[in-house]
């Protein structure tokens, strides 16, 4: 080490250009003088000697210019080499130091790995969720989603809606001058392909023929859809498949193009493959694209049927559009609003005040963010807190080591190594450590991303490795920044080293101010940990609260199975017969407690219906909350776990005979018959002319699909088949006797296939799986906050331990003296513990204050829990104190064993 340090003392100053020229000219002058002297000594006259010297030098101007150039290049190379050598020396020195203290190195690298890894993971997620445009879309900044601000009768305020009817789409496509391409799409929906046990479910979008042209996509193979493919009335029987589907199902073989796939009774020919990672204008996973003209034969939203091209009431598609060059958004909004309002005049009762607005498809330019995006962004911020904690901890460890290396540093200073070089050495060391940490962080990010992609954000089309160029760049930059930041503190600290005192002092003692710095850093860690733990508590509590909502259905214990039979060519009689068989066979299956049939389900789609109550002109039910009609078979309420509050449920006999009875939900009973008992009342379905259904029972409230809703839904349950003309999709419900319900999925599927050959794909799932979308933001928040909070706590505990252990080491002699003077072990224990607890208490107070102040930012992401929940705040404080006690206990116990004799002997 020494020679390099000494050598650097004589380092040449960096040469500026002028100096180089001066030096070179000085050399030339001397050369000429000596040459002329030499020649004159040989007897030449001065004039002849000068001429000869010039001749020997070569062409004057050129020669000098070439010399200057060579000199400049020499200087550049020498300074560069010197700098590289210095740097390399620093790195080698840093590596040597790291190898000498493997425990320290591992602790720092792991801390960095956690901090940087958390950020890399969240960067990977936010990058995909927010920062990137949908893949393969040409000029994505010019592509817009058309939305309508609408008012609904009976509800105040405007609601934004991206759903349109087909006629409304045609209006906007053909009559808005400022739009060049206007395409339509549905959300990716489950479609079933094939028959029998090999049948499967795919996610398909119905799109207009100009969809791919509008998005500006090029095929990976074959061709994409063209306008004729979806031209009315019937279009072409073609599909375009996604690159992922192509790889999965066909191994990426070229002969996949031209193959057919069975959808219901239709055979669709694969004509092309979309480019890898293409998911349209959004980010949801999709397997294939079907011309919208297949609407009916796919059985898509079968209740709309033939009316899909003409009905303005059926709202089922969304619209993407490109501006014509030169058109402004304001112009187009105005044009589209006029066109839309004009078209909607044809629909009685439609909102004539709807306003059309264009919204960019770029995630960052959207008006509002989905809960997932908001929670992910919050977690991105949280990851930064984790990194700050990690940095504080590493700085602390580095400081502790600087103390231990005081002697060595003093020697280097004495040898004349400049303080600037020494500071650079510290930064190089911390940066080398940070880079190692970053390498380990990539492993963390890899696993973290797998968790995020596979378990927490499943409704997003992830493609490609999480460790892509952007993530690697981010990680490298993050490592550089934290390396620099953590190295600076010790680098600045040692500036205050007083050389003489360092050399005079023994290795221990002194450094009280540095212990103070370290305690302050611990405090920062503690405060940030408290904030994270409070966040964890709030999200876990929200998740619990959401999970505890009484839905009126035991979603965890019920398996629902449904098949798209109509598009597969089954007649109504065959469908009814099949479901009856399924119900009967399900009831005899081992492990099944109850089984029943329902028409329309709480999860999936339901049909709002017109219900007439004689004597009441219009039902006092808010729009959007029913009443919904469900046809049921026997055991329906016991199977789904819906309680009957008053009266009774519908009997098997009544169902078989189609008795005119009904069960209504509590919400409906309260709204329609607020004063009296609803039992015995008369409800008429759809029309006044039909006979009464007598209300024989009132059920508890049942949520519809979304369970976090403003108002409970009103329901009317009637015997199966009474709503037949509207409700064609049936569902088999199976209540599992015990154990996890998902174990029954496969047996139910097999039972279904064994009933009849050539059935389409049965969609079988536990009802709770429908809740996944809604639970996701809280699950995401609770899991990641929990992970980050836990890590923060561990890092903080390790930091506290190391500081206290160091302090005990420093004061061993003093403690020995105290024990020699008769201090009881209890006193020593208290002395040391109190230091750790003071830090913890300070952190708790400050952290809770910050958490209280920051609470309002997360309030909207919580469910029925106040950001000031006293149990959570109190619990966090207790956890912190307990952890601090445990972390201080070990060094405190060591302190009580301080040997008075060693202490007194040592100097």
């Amino acid at each position, binding site marked *: 080490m020494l020679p390099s340090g000494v050598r650097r003392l004589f380092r040449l100053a960096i040469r500026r250009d002028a100096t180089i020229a001066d030096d070179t000219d000085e050399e030339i002058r001397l050369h000429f003088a000596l*040459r002329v002297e030499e020649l004159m000594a040989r007897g030449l006259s001065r004039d002849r000697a000068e001429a000869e010297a010039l001749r020997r030098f070569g062409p004057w101007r050129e020669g000098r210019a070439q010399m200057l150039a060579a000199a400049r290049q*020499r200087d550049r190379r020498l300074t560069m080499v010197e700098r590289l050598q210095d740097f390399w020396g620093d790195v080698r020195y840093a590596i040597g130091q790291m190898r000498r203290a493997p425990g320290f190195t591992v602790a720092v690298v792991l801390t960095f790995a956690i901090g940087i890894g958390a950020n890399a993971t969240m960067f990977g997620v936010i990058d995909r969720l927010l920062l990137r445009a949908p893949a393969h879309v040409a000029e994505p900044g010019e592509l817009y989603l058309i939305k309508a601000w609408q008012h609904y009768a009976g509800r105040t305020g405007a609601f934004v809606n991206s759903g349109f009817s087909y006629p409304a789409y045609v209006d906007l496509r053909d009559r808005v001058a400022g739009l060049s391409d206007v395409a339509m799409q549905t959300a990716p929906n489950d479609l079933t392909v094939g028959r029998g046990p090999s049948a499967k479910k795919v996610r398909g979008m119905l799109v207009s023929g100009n969809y791919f042209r509008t998005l500006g996509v090029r095929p990976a193979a074959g061709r994409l859809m063209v306008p004729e493919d979806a031209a009315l009335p019937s279009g072409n029987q073609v599909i375009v498949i996604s690159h992922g589907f192509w790889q999965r199902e066909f191994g990426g073989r070229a002969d996949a193009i031209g193959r057919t796939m069975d959808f219901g009774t239709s055979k669709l020919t694969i004509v092309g493959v979309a480019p890898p990672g293409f998911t349209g204008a959004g980010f949801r996973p999709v397997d294939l694209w079907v011309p919208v003209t297949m609407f009916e034969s796919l059985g898509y939203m079968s209740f709309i049927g033939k009316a899909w091209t003409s009905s303005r009431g059926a709202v089922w598609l969304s619209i993407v559009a490109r501006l014509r060059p030169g058109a402004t958004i304001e112009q187009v909004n105005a044009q589209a609003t006029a066109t839309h309002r004009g078209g909607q005049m044809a629909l009685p009762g439609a909102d004539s005040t709807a306003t059309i607005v264009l919204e960019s498809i770029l995630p960052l330019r959207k008006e509002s963010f989905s809960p997932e995006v908001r929670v992910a962004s919050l977690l991105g911020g949280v990851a930064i807190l984790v990194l700050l904690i990690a940095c504080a901890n590493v700085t602390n460890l580095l400081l502790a080591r600087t103390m231990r290396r005081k002697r060595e540093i003093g020697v280097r200073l004495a040898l004349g190594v400049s303080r600037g070089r020494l500071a650079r050495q510290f930064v190089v060391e911390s940066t080398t450590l940070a880079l190692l940490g970053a390498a380990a962080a990539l492993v963390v990010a890899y696993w973290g991303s797998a968790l995020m992609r596979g378990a927490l954000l499943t409704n997003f089309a992830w493609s490609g490795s999480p460790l892509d160029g952007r993530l690697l760049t981010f990680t490298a930059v993050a490592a550089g920044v934290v390396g620099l930041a953590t190295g600076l503190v010790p680098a600045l600290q040692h500036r205050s080293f007083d050389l003489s005192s360092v050399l005079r002092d023994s290795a221990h003692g002194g450094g009280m101010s540095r212990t103070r710095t370290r305690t302050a850093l611990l405090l920062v860690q503690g405060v940030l940990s408290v904030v994270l733990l409070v966040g964890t508590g709030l999200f876990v509590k929200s998740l619990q609260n959401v999970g505890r909502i009484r839905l009126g259905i035991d979603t965890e214990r019920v398996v629902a199975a449904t098949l798209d039979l109509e598009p597969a060519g089954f007649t109504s009689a065959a469908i009814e017969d099949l479901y009856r068989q399924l119900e009967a066979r399900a009831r005899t299956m081992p492990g099944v407690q109850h089984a029943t049939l329902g028409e329309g389900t709480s999860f999936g789609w339901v049909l709002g219906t017109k219900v007439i109550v004689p004597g009441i002109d219009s039902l006092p039910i808010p729009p959007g909350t029913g009443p919904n009609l469900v046809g049921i078979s026997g055991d329906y309420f016991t199977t789904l776990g819906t309680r009957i509050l008053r009266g009774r449920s519908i009997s098997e006999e009544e169902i078989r005979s189609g008795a005119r009875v009904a069960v209504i939900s509590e919400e409906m009973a309260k709204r329609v018959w607020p004063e009296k008992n609803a039992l015995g009342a008369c409800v008429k379905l759809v029309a006044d002319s039909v006979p009464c259904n007598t209300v024989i029972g009132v059920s508890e409230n049942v949520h519809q699909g979304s369970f976090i809703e403003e108002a409970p839904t009103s329901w009317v349950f009637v015997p199966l088949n009474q709503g037949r003309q509207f409700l064609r999709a049936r569902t088999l419900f199976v209540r599992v006797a015990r154990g996890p319900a998902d174990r029954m999925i496969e047996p139910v599927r097999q039972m279904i296939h064994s009933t009849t050959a050539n059935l389409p794909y049965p969609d079988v799932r536990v009802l709770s799986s429908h809740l996944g979308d809604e639970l996701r933001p809280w699950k995401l928040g609770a899991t990641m906050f929990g992970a980050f909070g836990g890590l923060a706590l561990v890092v903080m505990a390790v930091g506290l331990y190391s500081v206290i252990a160091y302090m005990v080491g420093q004061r061993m002699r003093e403690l020995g003296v105290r024990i020699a003077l008769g201090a009881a072990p209890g006193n020593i224990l208290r002395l040391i513990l109190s230091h750790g607890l003071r830090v913890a208490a300070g952190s708790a107070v400050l952290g809770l204050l910050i958490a209280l102040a920051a609470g309002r930012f997360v309030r909207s992401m919580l469910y029925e829990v106040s950001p000031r929940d006293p149990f959570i705040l109190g619990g966090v404080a207790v956890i912190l104190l307990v952890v601090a006690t445990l972390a201080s206990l070990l060094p405190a116990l060591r302190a009580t064993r301080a040997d008075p004799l060693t202490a007194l002997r040592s100097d």
Partner: protein
Amino acid sequence: MANPLPVLRGTLDTLVLKALATGPMHGFEITAWLDQRARGNLELLDSALYQAVYRLEARRLVSAEWGITGHNRRARYYSLTTAGRAHLRREVSNWLRYTTTVSGILTTPHPA
């Protein structure tokens, strides 16, 4: 006297190294040392020689330091580095192999 021969760039570098192998010199001393031994057979431009020295310096085969001449003048003194010494050894042995081989071929007697 025959016309002096031009010197190739690589050869010039080796010659400079050889000159410095005898001890540190400033630029003029190098030219004088070489002139004395070439006896007018080599065409050496002084400016080219300085460039050769600078190149060698950039390659760290030669190091430089300002010093004072016997006549009390400031001059840049050049000396061989360890790497320069090794480089010279290699170059000399290569040169000898090369010239022996080539002369051997060129002096093969023609069959009568």
